[in-house]
């Protein structure tokens, strides 16, 4: 479990970093927190010629709120999402979802953008990003572009990022008034990737669901947003009926792969169970504290 030989570069600026990426293209790999890349290197499953360490780029170390968006720079560790009180208020789903990622030791190193760029279909943050409608900012020598989360994840461990692009920032819209959010998952142990995870949001007004968001981890090759289920919730005047319809929709539509930990059937079942539980929780939060802030 030692990596094969690679070249190591540690640029101090985004410009330098994208230069290196432009030069080496697919032969280069960005190193952020290293919590996914280093195991892959040690198992010799990843064999980049050049490792581009972005940990010296101080300019990417910011977590700020600006005109209704939470902006997370590429060097921000996952742990900050749970530590910094504002995130609970601005994007509560993110603060809740991140606690399911590994263990504190992992989150102290692993970055938010790294988790998104790694794009594990069972990972929590990608599902949360899809649920809230995050936008991912990619930087290359040819410029900057913003990719909506739903278009960012293209397959297991693959994204819309080009080899010469650096993900410099993830932007999460701050939650609107009357919204309540919840993230729930089932994993074998606390801290494992989800067997199935659900990110749910509901907007409650006058005792009815006005709007809803549902996205799933571990339920397909990419984080899946279930629009049909969202619509079902809004259409049903009765909350419980809406929740049942959404859960049924999840069971009908999702086609997760089975693996040694959970069969496809079990994952679908979990998706339905968690859909109902997460929606009830989100609802209770939406209706108790308008604005959705909760601890």
């Amino acid at each position, binding site marked *: *479990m*030692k*990596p*094969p*030989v690679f070249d190591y570069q540690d640029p101090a600026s985004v410009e330098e970093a994208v230069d290196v990426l432009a030069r080496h293209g697919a032969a280069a790999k960005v190193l952020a927190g290293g919590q996914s890349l280093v195991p892959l290197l040690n*198992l*010799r499953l990843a064999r980049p010629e050049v490792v581009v360490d972005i940990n010296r780029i101080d300019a990417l170390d910011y977590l700020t709120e600006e005109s209704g968006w939470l902006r997370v720079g590429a060097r921000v560790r996952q742990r900050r999402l749970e530590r910094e009180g504002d995130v609970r208020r601005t994007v509560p789903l993110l603060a809740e979802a991140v606690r399911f990622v590994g*263990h504190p030791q992992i989150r102290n190193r692993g970055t938010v953008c790294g988790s998104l760029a790694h794009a594990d279909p069972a990972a929590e943050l990608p599902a949360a990003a899809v649920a809230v409608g995050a936008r991912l900012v990619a930087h290359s020598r040819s410029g900057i572009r913003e990719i909506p989360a739903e278009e960012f994840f293209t397959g297991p461990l693959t994204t819309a990022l080009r080899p010469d692009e650096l993900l410099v920032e993830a932007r999460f819209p701050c939650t609107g008034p009357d919204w309540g959010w919840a993230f729930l998952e*089932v994993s*074998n*142990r*606390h*801290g*494992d*990737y989800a*067997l199935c995870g659900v990110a749910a949001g509901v907007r409650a007004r006058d005792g009815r669901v006005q709007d809803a968001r549902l996205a799933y981890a571990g339920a397909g090759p990419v984080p899946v947003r279930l629009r049909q289920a969202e619509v079902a919730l809004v259409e049903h005047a009765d909350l419980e009926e809406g929740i049942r319809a959404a859960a049924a929709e999840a069971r009908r539509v999702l086609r997760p792969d089975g693996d*040694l*930990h*959970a*069969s496809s059937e*079990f994952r679908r*079942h*979990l998706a339905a*169970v*968690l859909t109902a539980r997460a929606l009830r929780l989100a609802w209770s939060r939406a209706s108790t504290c308008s604005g959705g802030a909760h601890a």
Partner: protein
Amino acid sequence: MTTRWLGAPIKRNEDPRLLVGQGLFVDDVQLPGMLHAVVLRSPHAHARILRIDVRRALEHPDVLLVLTHADLPPSLREPLPKLIPHPDLKHHKTQYTLAPDKVRHVGEPVAFVVATSRYAAEDAAELIEVDYEPLPAVVDLEDAAAGRPALVHEDIGTNVAAHSVQRVGDYEAARARADLVLARRFVVDRGCASPMETRGVVAQWDPRARQLTVWDSTQAPIPIRNGLAALFGLAQKDVRVIAPDVGGGFGPKIMMFYPEEVLVPLAAMRLGRPVKWIEDRREHFVATNHERTQIHHAEIALDREGHILGVRTVFLHDAGAYIPYGLIVPIVAECTLPGPYRIPNYHAEFRAVFTNKTIVSPYRGAGRPHGVFVMERLLDLAARELGMDRAEIRRRNFIQPHEFPYDVGLIYQDNAPLVYDSGNYPAALERALEAVDYPRWPEEKARYRAQGRRVGLGFACYVEGSGIGPYEGCRVTVEPSGKVYVATGVGTQGQGHFTSLAQVVAEALGVDVRDVHVVTGDTGAFGWGTGTFASRAAVVAGSAVHLAAQAVRQKALQVAASLLEASPEDLELADGQVRVRGAPSRSVSLGEVARAANPLRGVIPSEWEGPGLEATRYFAPPRGTFSHGVHAALVEVDPETATLRFLRYVVVHDCGTILNPLILDGQIHGGVAQGIGGSFFERLVYDDSGQLLSGSFMDFHIPTAVEIPEIEVIHQETPSPLNPIGAKGAGEGGVIPVPALVAQAIEDALDDLELEILRMPLHPDALFELIQKATRRGS
């Protein structure tokens, strides 16, 4: 006042050193000019080796040596030694140092590369070309027993290595008389130990002195030394094997030999430079022995009142690709099954079967969890069928305290009759039931149910065979400094021997336990012994330590008597002094006594039996001693997500005289954690081609502090009459009954479902399937 050391909850002598990172594990051994080795392992479960080409690896600039089977000396081209023969083991196939013409499990060593760094060695290993012709993999145990789809060892014409039967009474006749006969198929699947320190070997050869020194993360340094001396044609005195601070053993580290234990010394001798090999975690999953898969067809016959008339178990044991360790696990399984119950008629029969999987040898529990699972499940099912309380059916069948010694009628793993020495089984169950308030459980359960929660209560009883022979030894030396040095051959892997054995000495000599320094696991310090396994260190080595310390005590009294001009009967040992009872001013320190016992001039009286305050003694128990206990737990089941949460966990534990209750609690806590891991989290999953799918900690889920509940331990002490300190083994009691208990608790929590748990380990997916298939009771 004399301080009592034995039985006191003393903090461990070794902890300060270990906690600040001053331990010495094999990877801490750094020697000048040291080289690094890696093993090229088979990627196939079953394949013929057509060609191996190592030229490109040898061309690597940092490589010094590449070995394949053809490069080995003749003595190492033979299969490695047969460890524990048995008359029923017809085909005692053992592993090779490097595979000759065929590989039989994923991870089997094929070539060995030595280079200037581990990195370079791994790079070079990738350059070795091996052509394999894959053969059908023998994965499924029942298929394997029928010779399908291939033979692991063609030359023997079968996959069945052994067929063994033991009988007590006449099961068939008992069955004919029975009011109720229940039969089920039980499966206990593969598991493995996960020591924090994987295996590792460093070897250094001194070509002038012709001496070999080997640091080995093993549980049995002395047998390893003896074996290496034989294989390399060296005198035992010229081989020194050191098992330094071993970071966990749990059974699999007592093997002889793992190929690396031979290859590393061989390379060091060939190259004249020290060589290090450290197993990485990925290798550990396929190259360190596993345990556990057994399929039992078991049957119980009872009368209407729930008295057991007889039990039969006919089972398959998955030995893996080779069977160096013999039949220990299945024998322990069949001998543990009767447990604390009177079973007048018993038929146990097994086949040990080769498969294309990692070799099996004992892992903490070593067959005991299997036996207990089968027996306890049979009783649970019988109680349900008879409409009887599950505690009551156990009470009716317990061996009573006055019945000891109790002859079970079987032959145990040490080839001696299985005779329980002492115990109090009914009392242990009552203590456990009281702790969880069993009489009020139905109301409590209903209360949970009213909150929409499914909580079940489970409990399980076991008897743990431990402390078997043949012997261990110990030398106790008091130096003129007053410090006491203790050397024993039994190794230590974190069990606290530096403290518990020191306590035995402190008690005998009246010295502070911190002044007693224990050396274990270094053949240079003590060269006789067998190793730490079968929960025997405290019992067998502890007794040897006791005998040696008592001999030193006698000598100290003798020598001090002449110094103090008193008679030995009037002296006492306390606070590092020998003093006249009632006249404490007339005293002499133990260090002075040691100096007086080793004079530079003059005469040594013949009663002293030699110079110095030192004695060596051996202890050879007539047979094993039997601990026992009961575990009880409250387990919450979420039937929708098929997950579990332990709300309470109680252990009633009886291992005879307690040397140190803190250390004992630690053993129990760790065991329960491993038991919970092996019941619901850890799984070794193979696909049809014999590839291990769960070969990393990402997929092999060791429970963490989040999953393990607080463990309440209640001690009961029924001393063993078989050794001078009354101790019994405590290493495995934590782990043994956990699967049985978890099964019972889940069934209790889901008692509105027609659901039987007959397989371990479970995991959410399997529990989901059981729940899906279950019908509602009464419908």
